[in-house]
């Protein structure tokens, strides 16, 4: 392990962590402004920094401040330890799963200016992948960690000594456990096609061939549905269901603990958008852009090639990833502000009787087709 490796990893860790949390806070703003624009409202633009309103961006700071100085309310008969532990458990998996997201290709600090002929992923003295941890079982790691998300919700509900919370956490438990299954199964098709569990290699496959959504359209839809269910947002926001069980499992939380749940949920949208981009939209891949420059082969013009320096390629690809993630966040938000909420039993039926069989069928069909093509 070289010093460079340690430094690079630490730097990436800090950068991404800061990035994610900022992103989560930004998401609060996106959520509010976007819903306002959809609903013909102005939205919150009250908070200001002097004369600047910044389209309501200052609200993030104001909210943060408010959350910090709010009373941290714990119900009298609640389990104090578990009550405090739950928000941390809820936010933990979100932060950890970010570690394996490949944000970009390998960047070589030694050869930033030259044209890269080695391909997107390579080893080198000053090279590092734009990904915190390369895990061989990347996908399994993601699913395993995401699976622990339910623990926070269940503990929060059980520790709060509130019947609404209890109902919420029961709902959360059954919903998350059911959709965990489909979440994994809907990706098996991808795994079969890409032939790897490493996320960076999945992107590489898509970089060389085509985007996952083209080969796995059904898988995309199923994963999207399961992902929204995992992040507990409308139409699958039953564990919260504010008009039924008030706010579900976190009804008894306030202050920063509440913020942890809230931010966790919003960051989860970001994580899911990242994974959707990685599995189905080619991650950092930009069409026609290879590691050494743009390769265009159009039927009329013939093959064309423009060489580009390494730094610009990496920058473009990072930007592309960001753009895809933003687009997918937008999609999730638009769905959230369009659809009503499902009912508990209907959600279960959808999970077990529709999405699960369909993802199994997807796996079977993919396997057969792959075998036939072999």
């Amino acid at each position, binding site marked *: 392990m070289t010093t460079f490796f340690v430094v690079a990893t630490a730097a990436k860790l800090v950068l991404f962590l800061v990035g994610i949390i900022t992103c989560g806070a930004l998401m609060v703003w996106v959520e509010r402004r976007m*819903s306002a624009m*959809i*609903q*013909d*409202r102005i939205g919150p633009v009250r908070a200001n920094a002097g004369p600047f309103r910044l389209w309501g961006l200052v609200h993030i700071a104001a909210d943060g401040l408010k959350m910090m100085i709010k009373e941290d309310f714990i119900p009298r008969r609640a389990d104090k330890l578990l009550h405090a532990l739950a928000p941390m458990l809820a936010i933990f998996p979100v932060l950890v799963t970010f570690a394996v997201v490949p944000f970009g290709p390998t960047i070589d600090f030694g050869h930033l200016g030259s044209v890269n002929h080695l391909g997107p992923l390579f080893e080198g003295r000053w090279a590092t992948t734009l990904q915190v941890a390369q895990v061989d079982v990347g996908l399994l790691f993601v699913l395993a960690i995401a699976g622990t998300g339910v623990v926070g919700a269940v503990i929060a509900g059980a520790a709060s000594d509130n*019947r*609404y919370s209890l*109902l919420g956490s029961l709902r959360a438990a059954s919903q998350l456990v059911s959709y965990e299954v489909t979440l994994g199964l809907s990706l098996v098709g991808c795994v079969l096609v890409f032939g790897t569990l490493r996320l960076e290699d999945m992107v590489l496959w898509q970089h060389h061939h085509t985007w996952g959504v083209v080969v796995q359209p059904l898988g995309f839809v199923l994963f999207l549905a399961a992902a929204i269910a995992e992040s507990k947002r*409308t*139409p699958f*926001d*039953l564990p919260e*269901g*504010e*008009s*039924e*069980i*008030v706010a579900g499992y976190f009804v008894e939380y306030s202050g920063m603990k509440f913020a942890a749940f809230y931010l966790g949920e919003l960051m989860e949208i970001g994580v899911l958008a990242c994974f959707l981009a990685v599995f189905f939209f080619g991650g950092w891949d930009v069409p026609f852009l290879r590691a050494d420059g743009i390769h265009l082969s159009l039927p009329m013009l013939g093959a064309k090639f423009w060489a580009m320096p390494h730094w610009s390629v990496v920058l473009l690809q990072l930007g592309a990833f960001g753009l895809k993630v933003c687009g997918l966040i937008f999609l999730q938000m638009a769905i959230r*502000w*369009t*659809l*009503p*909420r*499902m*009912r*508990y*039993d*209907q959600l279960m039926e959808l999970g077990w009787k529709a999405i699960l069989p369909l993802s199994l069928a997807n796996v079977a069909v993919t396997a057969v087709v792959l075998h036939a093509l072999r």
Partner: protein
Amino acid sequence: MEEYREEELTLPAEPMLLHMGPSHPAMHGTVRCVVKLDGETVVGSDVQIGYLHRGFEKECEWGTWTQVFPYTDRLNYASPLLNNIGYALAVEKLLGLQVPARCQYIRVILGELARICDHSVCSAAMAMELGAFTVFLYLVKAREWIFDILEEVTGARVTHAFCRIGGLRWDLPENFADRVRSVLPKSLEAIHECEQLLLRNRIFMDRTMGVGTITPERALAWGWTGPCLRSTGVAYDVRKAHPYLVYEDLDFDIPVGSQGDNYDRFVCRLEEIRQSARIVMQALDKLPDGPIAVPDDTGILLPQKLETYTTIERTIQHFKIIMEGIQVPPGEVYSYSEAANGELGFYLVSNGSGKPWKCRVRPPCFANVQALSELTRGRLLPDIIPTFGSINMIGGECDR
């Protein structure tokens, strides 16, 4: 192998009592449901009303006949004008009074606008409680535009206090017809958008179809009226069955449902909005000129202001009406009209003293909300929400 009975295999469990409301987002702060839950299945529920009881009927006995108007605003606060009209009609029936044609038309127009507001806010609340927040705001937007018009006419957005016994407070403002003709289509467009968002959406259909179903017989047995009753297929509408004002001269249809479930109630309301808009448009076209109130020498309406200021006879007449109240002959009367939630009845008793001796209201949603417990028994907890929403319990009217 030993035989086990089903009960022995399950752990002993007792139902959980959950107090929904009065401070619960779906209960509008005005009602409490104590539900007995087995898991999420409602084993039984106890609907407790009365959180908004303000003693309306007793209050009415304290003031003059005119002073009741501000109270009626607060019965069904989603459509105050319809209550105004209902009460005015009741007193006029007791007086044996027929208001002039223009007044009748204006009452119809304003009443139907109020009905549109009421139906849209009811549908909006129901949609919001199902999680469709966008629909809520679109419908509220549609209502808001109509509120603007009502404010221009009556001087207040909600507490209009606009009707008077034997007439109205004011005539319509000058540009009223144009305003309505331009705003109503906009509101209907917003309502159409909501239909696009919900009516064929499977999630919405799953949540509402077959939920809260009631048969016409049960509905009649509970005393249901209004859109809730019509959703079961019974085409009973006071405006058609016992026409009052000028509803006979106007062409409109009654939308009825077929299943009597939440979906039918929701769609019936939206359809009624269309019909109400039709009525408004026709009435605007037919609106006759003329006085908006009975002649002021009948001792019912306050005399013309300018004459009061300048002539002593009128001033005396004015004082008599203000100080003693309108003199209503002794007797009793039951008068009913089609309010937004159904048949709104006023049972009035006068002893000739210038004050109501008794003013009893038959609130439509009191009858409707009684059935809530029956409608939700054996269903899931989330089913209470759309069912309660589609019954449209309005605290002010139900509890009085």
